[in-house]
């Protein structure tokens, strides 16, 4: 394993030192592993807290700032944060208007955020949660852990963040966050596995012409192994899965996301096919992101996330945002 690290044990801490040095707009509590907006807490503003395992950079630390998150709690690599950390972030961003937890639907994340919400409540902070579960590769059912949360986390953070910035109350911010999630769908494809520093070798082995369809964001294998094929055909598999679950139509927010090791060039090639697919369905790529936004360390592959916009959601998407990884309007 060749990685740009100092020690396997200090990967998250060393990352946070770099984030602190790179972004003066953030305040990084390295001991408790929390990335705060420098001006948090903002009196009267609903605080937004998200978090999850590390290794998905820029998620979530890259989305802390004006118009988006107030704090992010990175856990160890692919391991969600612990309750203490989340409580510390929650109380630290509470400006008296309550705090929204944005949680990706994984057993661990849900359990740890639930515990933290309870403990924060004990400390007098009103907490509501938005559960993100956009991944159509996983079939939802009463008897499973449900669908995974992936790319839509970013959409929820941006749009709920914009509403919170405008001074809306907690229930409203939670409502819009849930609406974004309900209107969002994702599907991911891996060309290679990723290597966690702790494991030191790829999480799975793929042949030279094999890919994984329906992957999550933790280097886990997908729903099926399949032969590699042209970008156009891979996009069709992903978009068909999304369209089957929630038919595409109208103004759509679309993200073509790299998994960390994919050249940007290839993401643009994928985006061209995604845009063509949407057009075929009579939908339009009204808002677009192409790049590494929710990654899995050094994995090669891509995911597509769509969100069926309303006027309100489009307006909130367009509202100014100023974070390390997403910035416009300021």
């Amino acid at each position: 394993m060749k990685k740009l690290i100092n020690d396997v044990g200090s990967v998250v801490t060393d990352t946070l030192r770099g984030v602190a040095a790179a972004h003066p707009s953030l305040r990084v509590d390295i001991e408790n592993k929390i990335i705060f907006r420098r001006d948090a807490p903002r009196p009267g503003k609903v605080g937004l807290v998200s978090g999850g395992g590390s290794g998905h950079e820029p998620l979530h630390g890259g989305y802390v700032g004006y118009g988006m998150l107030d704090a992010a709690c990175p856990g160890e690599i692919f391991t969600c944060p612990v309750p203490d950390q989340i409580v510390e972030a929650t109380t630290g961003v509470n400006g008296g208007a309550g705090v929204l937890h944005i949680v990706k639907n994984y057993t661990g994340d849900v359990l740890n955020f639930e515990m933290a919400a309870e403990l924060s409540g004990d400390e007098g902070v009103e907490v509501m949660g938005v559960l993100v579960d956009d991944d159509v590769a996983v079939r939802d059912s009463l008897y499973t852990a449900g669908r995974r949360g992936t790319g839509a986390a970013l959409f929820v953070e941006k749009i709920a963040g914009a509403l919170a910035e405008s001074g809306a109350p907690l229930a409203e911010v939670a409502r819009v966050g849930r609406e974004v999630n309900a209107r969002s769908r994702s599907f991911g494809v891996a060309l290679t596995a990723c290597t966690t520093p702790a494991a030191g070798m790829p999480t799975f082995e793929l042949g030279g012409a094999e890919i994984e369809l329906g992957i999550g964001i933790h280097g886990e294998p997908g729903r099926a192994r399949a032969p590699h094929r042209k970008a156009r055909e891979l996009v069709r598999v992903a978009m068909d899965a999304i369209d089957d679950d929630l038919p595409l139509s109208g103004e759509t927010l679309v993200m073509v996301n790299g998994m960390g090791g994919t050249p940007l060039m290839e993401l643009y090639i994928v985006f061209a096919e995604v845009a063509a697919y949407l057009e075929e369905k009579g939908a339009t790529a009204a808002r677009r992101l192409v790049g590494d936004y929710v990654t899995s360390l050094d994995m090669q592959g891509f995911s597509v996330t769509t969100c069926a916009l309303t006027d309100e959601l489009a307006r909130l998407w367009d509202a100014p945002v100023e974070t390390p990884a997403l910035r416009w309007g300021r």
Partner: protein
Amino acid sequence: MDTRFFVTWMEEITTAVHAGRDRLTRLDAAIGDADHGANLDRGFTAVAEALAARPPGTPGAVLVLAGTTLIRKVGGASGPLYGTAFREMGRALGEAPDVPVAALASALEAGLAGVRRLGGAEDGDKTMVDALAPAIRALARCAGEGGEPEEAFAAAAAAAEEGAKATVPLVARKGRASYLGPRSAGHEDPGAASTVLIVGALGTAAARRRPRTG
């Protein structure tokens, strides 16, 4: 079993988890996210440190401290689940200074109830429950028959082992492995495998406490 025994149990778990770290991670790499070994190693190392820093006065306090530490340090699914299990066990033991096997079995039962409540897993969902539940049944049975703790622990360890092995053909219905659907079959559940280490450490703890002669 006294307070010292429970501290020793935690130490033995720490040792076993540390030694089994890579295997647990490999199992988790196959159907999860390759962190179960690292998670528990980090967690139980912290448990050992916490126990050394603030030695508790009762068996129940040992388990509550262990559980709380796991919740604080592990993250992931296994942190809150194992953490809750130990906390519930500790609460069930109350202030008792000495714990017979039967009481330990009921405490484990309370811990398992906590896991079920939190995670919603049923038997056969391919989780830690599938190793823990049969281990507790074996322990309770031996306790009822009035045997030596060592025998009860051996029976519990064997049952946990068997339960874990039995997760291999199952299709996961809870946790991260469930995302794989049918592809989760053919692999042992990492949480069930770590439960084998935890239950197995009861026996090594007992052996260390009462070294056999000749």
